[in-house]
């Protein structure tokens, strides 16, 4: 038997691995960047900070709001020197809320609203309050609801009633960071494979290196297997690196079956490798390849619930969204991380992802242009 060092698969894998690790940028974008994103988003969504709302007042007559501001608000100035009335409501459970009211004319108020500097405009009709805001903007809705509730019972300062009914959940897996980390792992997997495999194939085709390689007795399947094996190993290392920091900083836990997690992770790698082979099967122009990669990645990045739940999308679209490979692998991995899922729950997505990847790879190989 010949030594393993002399085999095609070993040499192809080794060469590809060396090429990857000799690009310092690859290590940054693959390992450091996801950790930085998780730290940034994790801290942003887990720290209890004061919520601040900016409300513009365009009232022409004296209103009940003016009386309340006189009684409860403090006067200060913003950075432009304009006078503000700041009404602070303390709440130990939901966090503090701070309304800052600024007088304005209608035109300036609309400009501020368009720029996102304010969420709500308060006007009046013969001294009766009128609220102006985009009803489809959930943040504006929230400001309106909080403010109108406050107007009804200003003396409560918002905290005493809520404490009676709210019981904060302290279960593991309900924090935003618990939701985010599985998404970042699958998002990293998709990006790493789409750019790593597709781009490598297209670049080697454009450099005529693919043609030089197939002019030897190299088995074509060995070339593609080596790309996938090395990429999968790199993805495992990157995922472990991200998980380690998430555990260290945010005390993240995997509640479900580790074996099932590994299997669905592999299925995700197979699915994205198949797509990567398909989209890089013919072109030798890296610009065309970049276009295809973005066209495939972008919709999944937005729709598949990596950063935020896709259940906010319209009901009719959910069926389609759930069919996307990134959705399937993210949901599967997330269910193991935070719901304690096991083998039974991941069988269907694992089989679907593997079959999808194999079908894409087979079609891609039939079209594949080696030179």
């Amino acid at each position: 038997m010949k030594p393993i060092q002399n085999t095609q698969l070993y040499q192809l894998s080794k060469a590809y691995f060396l090429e990857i690790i000799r690009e310092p940028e690859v290590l940054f974008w693959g390992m450091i960047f996801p950790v930085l994103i998780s730290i940034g988003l994790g801290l942003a969504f887990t720290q209890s900070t004061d919520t601040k709302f900016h409300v513009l007042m365009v009232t022409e007559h004296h209103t009940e709001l003016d009386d309340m501001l006189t009684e409860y608000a403090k006067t200060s100035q913003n950075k432009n020197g304009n006078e503000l009335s700041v009404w602070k409501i303390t709440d130990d459970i939901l966090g503090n809320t701070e309304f800052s009211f600024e007088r304005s004319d209608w035109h300036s108020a609309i400009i501020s609203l368009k720029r996102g500097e304010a969420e709500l405009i308060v006007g009046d009709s013969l001294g009766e309050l009128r609220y102006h805001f985009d009803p489809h903007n959930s943040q504006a809705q929230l400001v309106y609801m909080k403010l109108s509730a406050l107007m009804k019972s200003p003396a409560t300062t918002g905290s005493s009633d809520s404490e009676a009914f709210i019981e904060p959940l302290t279960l593991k897996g309900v924090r935003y960071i618990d939701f985010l980390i599985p998404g970042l792992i699958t998002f990293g997997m998709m990006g790493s494979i789409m750019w790593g495999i597709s781009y490598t194939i297209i670049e080697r085709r454009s450099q005529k290196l693919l043609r030089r390689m197939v002019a030897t007795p190299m088995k074509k399947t060995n070339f593609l297997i080596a790309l996938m094996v090395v990429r999968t190993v790199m993805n495992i290392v990157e995922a472990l690196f991200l998980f380690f920091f998430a555990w260290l900083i945010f005390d993240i836990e995997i509640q479900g079956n580790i074996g099932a997690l590994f299997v669905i992770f592999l299925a995700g790698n197979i699915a994205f490798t198949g797509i990567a082979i398909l989209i890089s099967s013919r072109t030798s122009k890296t610009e065309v390849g970049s276009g295809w990669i973005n066209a495939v990645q972008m919709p999944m990045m937005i729709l598949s619930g990596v950063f935020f739940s896709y259940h906010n999308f319209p009901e009719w679209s959910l069926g389609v969204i759930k069919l996307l490979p990134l959705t399937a692998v993210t949901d599967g991995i997330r269910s193991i991380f935070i719901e304690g899922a096991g083998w039974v729950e991941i069988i269907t997505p694992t089989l679907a992802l593997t079959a999808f990847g194999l079908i894409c790879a087979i079609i891609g190989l039939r079209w594949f242009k080696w030179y």
Partner: protein
Amino acid sequence: MLQIEVKDVYKSFKDVQAVRGVSLAIQPGEFVALLGPNGAGKTTMVEMMEGLRKPDSGEILIQGKNWKKHERELRKIIGLSLQETRFAEKLSIRETLRLFAGFFDLGNERVNEVIALTGLESKQKSYVGTLSGGQRQRLALAVALLNTPQVLFLDEPTTGLDPHSRLDLWNILRLLKEKGNTTLILTTHYMEEAESLCDHIIIMDEGKILREGKLEDLLDEESHNLDELFINLTGKTLSEVPTLIP
């Protein structure tokens, strides 16, 4: 048995006829130059002999075997250096050779031999991205020689090289010729390269063979060298670049 036999081969790309009815026969151990200006059809002809392109019609046999039925066998006995191949820049010379050696089930011993043969010992740990044009061509030749090929195809191996690097490459090829185990098919538009290295010269233009034979048989009182011969045959010099606008 003939080492290479080409029978009435045609090849066209869209509306361009690159090769038009070429036939030739190459003996074992012969060093053959395919000489012609850019666009003469040399590269297309060689790529068909290398099994990288299929002819539209005609037949190509290497040691009596065709590419369709015997591709795996033939890949093991040929070596080639293509125009414009760029090897991975972040691999060293040794790693690149080790990679290609793996395709032929060869180990370090053969890698050491070709590194010595092509004079790349001092550069073997350098990344390909740091090499000069001449060193890259020597690497391409080293890769082509890994499997001790019985048939070696070199497509314009010295184009763009300075005279010193070109001479270095010629010396390596002369060493190979002395050993006598390899048949070489070399495309070039440098007549001195063909004169200096090859026993048999095939002059091509516009997809056809204009003349072929040994150097002394091709030259006569009207044509004292290959450039003069080419002018007499076509009315243009070998270095003339074909114009794209009629």
